[in-house]
């Protein structure tokens, strides 16, 4: 349906010279639209463009400029920041702590994305084979988890993991493990384990729903035909189901990687629930600390620019596939 509409508009644009021929045909009312075309679309996008330039474009340019300036004590007293070229970026590339934060962020992001994908896909496959009531139950519960606002989810998880009266410590103690009064956030490894569980808990529903939507595209007739031709369940799965859901899986995986790079809220809130910041910083919280804590806007901007470039690089494939969708 949408394809048809866009083909028609495309055809109309392609031949402005042929408008005489077009208007000779019964679809005459098309003519006024053609006359208006040069201005109308631009007028329509102007509000969005203005707000995007104000709130995104300007800060972006400020950030690029600021990332070449040096901020120190003098700038906190109002001195203009001197231009230092790429010095902030050099510092960024040679600072071992920065590398720790980058690698930590990437490792955390990839671990979250991989585990989310595996669990999400398994749950989608599960939905496909269980009785109807079990599927509906799973869908409702996943929806509830997905709908939880991130800050509310974080308060609940801090309560679940509360060292004195949290239910997690109680359960682990009840089965005989030494978890009474255990503090989950003080050790960085355990801190990231907790963060991973929370991020995975929040992201699995989207993956499950998207993959399940993909699975419903697998036609019963095709599977049945394959079955009659003697294909084993395993062959049917890898030969039919997997190729059909592969596009969904790749797009969802990409989105997960992009989203799991932006876990500022989760990490920031877990940090404020009690942990050593320098040992648990990821890129987002590090930028926050540089910008608001030490007012080093030059370095904060340089790291931000790095994060933006990284995101755009990872998104390129997704954006390309969406553009294709737009043009189809």
């Amino acid at each position, binding site marked *: *349906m949408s394809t048809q509409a866009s083909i028609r*508009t495309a055809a109309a644009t392609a031949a402005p010279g042929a408008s005489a021929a077009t208007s000779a045909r019964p679809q005459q*009312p098309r003519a006024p*639209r053609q006359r208006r075309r040069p201005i109308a679309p*631009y007028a329509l996008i102007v509000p*969005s463009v203005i*707000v*995007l330039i104000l709130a*995104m474009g300007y800060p*972006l340019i*400020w950030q690029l400029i*600021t990332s070449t300036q040096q901020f120190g004590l003098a700038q906190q007293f109002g001195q203009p920041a001197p231009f230092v070229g790429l010095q902030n970026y050099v510092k960024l590339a040679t600072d071992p702590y920065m590398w720790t934060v980058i690698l930590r962020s990437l490792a955390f992001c990839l671990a979250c994305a991989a585990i989310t994908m595996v669990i999400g896909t398994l*749950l989608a496959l599960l939905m496909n*084979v*269980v009785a109807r009531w*079990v599927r509906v*139950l*799973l869908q*409702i*519960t996943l*929806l*509830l*988890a*997905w709908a*939880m*606002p991130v*800050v509310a989810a974080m*308060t*609940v998880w*801090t*309560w679940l993991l509360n060292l*004195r*009266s949290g239910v997690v410590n109680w359960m682990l103690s009840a089965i005989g493990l030494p978890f009474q009064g255990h503090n989950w956030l003080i050790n960085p490894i355990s801190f990231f384990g907790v963060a991973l569980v929370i991020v995975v*808990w929040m992201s699995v*529903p989207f993956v499950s729903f*998207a993959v399940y*939507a993909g699975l419903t*595209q697998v036609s*019963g*007739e095709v599977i049945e035909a394959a079955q009659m031709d003697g294909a084993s369940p*395993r062959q*049917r*799965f890898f030969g039919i*189901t997997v190729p059909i859901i592969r*596009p969904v899986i790749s797009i969802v995986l990409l989105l997960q990687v*992009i989203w799991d790079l932006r876990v*500022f809220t989760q990490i*920031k809130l877990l940090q404020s629930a009690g942990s050593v910041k320098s040992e648990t910083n990821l890129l*987002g919280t590090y*930028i*926050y600390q540089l910008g*608001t804590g030490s007012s080093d*806007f030059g370095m*904060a901007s340089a790291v*931000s620019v790095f994060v933006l470039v990284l995101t*755009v690089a990872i*998104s390129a494939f997704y*954006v390309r596939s969406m*553009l294709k969708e737009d043009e*189809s």
Partner: protein
Amino acid sequence: MSGPSTGSGNNKIRSGNNRSKIRTSDRVRPSKVVYSVIGVIAALIWVFPVYWMLNSSLLSNVVLQDPTPTFLPFGGSFANFGAVFAGGTFFPALGMSVAIAAIVVVFCLLFAFLAALAISRFRFRGRRGFVLAILLIQMLPAEGLFIAQYKLMSSVNLLNSVIGISVLYIAAVVPFTIWMLRGFVAGIPVELEEAGMVDGLSRTQAFLRITFPLLAPGLVASGVYAFLQVWNEFTIALVVLPDNGSATLPLWLQGFIQASASRATDWGQVMAASTLVALPVIFFFLFVQGRMTSGLVSGAVKG
């Protein structure tokens, strides 16, 4: 785990699949029972934190401090909710959140609707660049720009203001909203409008009487999406609304987490507060879930 192997039974019958499914599950396969048990366990694990929030919100602090948890809210009350309301900080935060959400939803829908019309009904120079820009901007993380946005807001004296943060939110939400509405607009054939014009309507009339009503579900879904984004947003609010007095609900709620690190916390009240923040979201979320999934993976999943 090669789950789908049991799918074979379901696919034998094309029509009346409801009955046939019952029939296949009657012919009990042991693997099917195992899968159902796993499914129920997974459902319980996923819903537990949500349940625990509701359960704790109904119990008194004395009960909650007991090392042995209380799993059912018998003998509970809404006292925690009363205490949250009486605390005096909930309603100002609610007011902030509602005001910001209202402004953002209205302007975002208007701007996105116009832009969606432009990209789905017209081919024009710069169209591809515009589409590319909104797709890219939609991917940018708030962490990558928030320090610059903080400096921008402080330089124009709009820190702690509803207007300032609303502008940032509109810009953050408008790209995906345009993308979502584009799908809806493109789904309505131009021919419908043209038919109306043949019957004597002006172009504007044809649009208002034919296309616009068909777009209503799309506008509602996009509006709810924008609302959810704004209602839940934490990162930008944290830097642009530094005053406690101008906190939105997420900022207000995180105050409890911060306090819990240093002193004894009334978890019953915190859970009641979380419930209050989460309820409207859960309610609205059920509306748009399907649209959001297909908007994000459109192209890979049809319909």
